[in-house]
């Protein structure tokens, strides 16, 4: 896990950030955390539509699972209330468990799908659950880099 994180760091170091795309929230289902599956045009040349849609739909599925109102969430709520919420000192909430799953999924997607295409997904939880940030990199080391002028900027960005 540490080495894969290190690879993503390498990607950042060797590439320069071209632009960022923000996938906004979709509120048609109320205040549930869902993201729009509309494909951003900036990614047109980089990523296949169905890959993007699959990622967003899976994320939406995770968030729906986290916020699901049902027997288990009520049980958790009632148990927590009965213990004056001290039980959360010992155990994680269901939501937190799902957020960990989401973080793992995003890491996998980055390694398998996005990093090879010079893209990087940022976990929405780091952006206040407002957006899915997708960073688009121009790889200045590779001979395929399209715009050498933009890659002239040194260091990081």
């Amino acid at each position, binding site marked *: 896990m540490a080495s894969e994180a290190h690879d993503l760091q390498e990607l950042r170091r060797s590439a320069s950030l071209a632009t960022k*795309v923000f996938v906004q929230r979709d509120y048609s289902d*109320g*205040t549930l955390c869902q993201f729009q599956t509309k494909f951003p045009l900036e990614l047109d040349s980089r990523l296949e539509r169905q890959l993007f849609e699959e990622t967003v739909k899976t994320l939406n599925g995770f968030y729906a699972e986290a916020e699901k109102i049902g027997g288990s969430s009520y049980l*958790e709520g009632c148990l*927590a209330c009965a213990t004056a919420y001290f039980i959360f000192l010992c155990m994680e*909430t269901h939501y937190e468990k799902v957020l960990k799953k989401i973080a793992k999924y995003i890491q996998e997607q980055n390694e398998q799908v996005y990093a090879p295409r010079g893209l990087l997904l940022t976990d929405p939880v*780091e952006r*206040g659950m407002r957006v899915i940030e997708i960073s688009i990199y121009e790889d200045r080391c590779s001979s395929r880099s399209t715009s050498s002028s933009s890659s002239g900027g040194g260091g*990081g960005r």
Partner: protein
Amino acid sequence: MSVMVVRKKAMRKWEKLPGRNTFCCDGRIMMARQKGIFYLTLFLILGTCALFFAFECRYLAVQLSPAIPVFAVVLFLFAMAMLLRTSFSDPGVIPRALPDEAAFIEMEIEATNGTVPQGQRPPPRIKNFQINNQIVKLKYCYTCKIFRPPRASHCSICDNCVERFDHHCPWVGNCVGKRNYRYFYLFILSLSLLTIYIFTFNIVYVALKSLKIGFLNTLKETPGTYLSPPHGAYLPFRPLCPVVGLTGFHTFLVALNQTTNEDIKGAWTGKNRVQNPYSHGNIVKNCCEVLCGPLPPSVLDRRGILQQEESSAQGDSSTRGPSTQEPGALEKSSTQEPGAAQVLSAQAVGSTREGSSSPTRQSAVPMLPLSPTGMPEETQPSAVELPAQTRDDGPTEH
């Protein structure tokens, strides 16, 4: 030979968070800036309970049952726990947009509205969404530079957008929003029960004692009851009506899945027969969702380590590239950030992403001079009381 290494304490994100909150215990506790009334609340609860335990309880435990003080203690501890939980937790603050995101949204807005000629007012920044066959308008917050989610509102006292904003409560010293509404409700409920309990047993105590030693002598003996006659109000009775009334009001809101903010603005009543799209139509379901629903964790990440931007001018090879937030991962990966490196060029700027200088509030016109004075529990509007103004961000005027 000793080498002096000055280890600079890593800066945590709460130190650079915009907004008007105060943080304690290295970011674990989050409150509003004005805490005076919160201390008053603590004093009133602790004072009343102390008097009750010190005087009435000893007599009643012997004369009636030892279960009386035991139950009082349990109620008291529960109420205090809920109060502290409400006061110290993140109500559901939405972090402000980072510069990239804000710029992206601005571009989108301009694309939708087109460029506005000089001298003309730009159209209001509103997005429409349809939720459950209702059109819900999302307003743009000029301070946080985001389109506020439905039911979110910007608290002018804390200067933050809060999800499912209910109200800013000076009595608990914090906003009441999505993440701490259930604690707030349980607090006022348990406090009502506690107040009723103490009040009832005070009457029982006075009655029992009066039978033995007479009413006037009883008043002389116990300060708790003694304080009441000059004011014509029994000491525990004073907070009883407002707190019980407030509990009733919030029970009504919970049953309808509404917030105080929506109720005061009349969002779902009156004209156009607009219905609350968030209500399940069933009281039990609404109560279950509000009080027992899933609890989202705080997205503020107050205790994350702030990435120090090292000066890149010296060709420092350890530049971390685009400064994305990775609080969990990089907090542990000390390979990236050896303590000594922090000494060298830890720019106090810290993360520029955080928008460390709090952005000036651009909306000059407060939309509606709504100042629900916090709670119906104030029987007399006191000068100390801070109007719980929810700034509705008058950008519709702009």
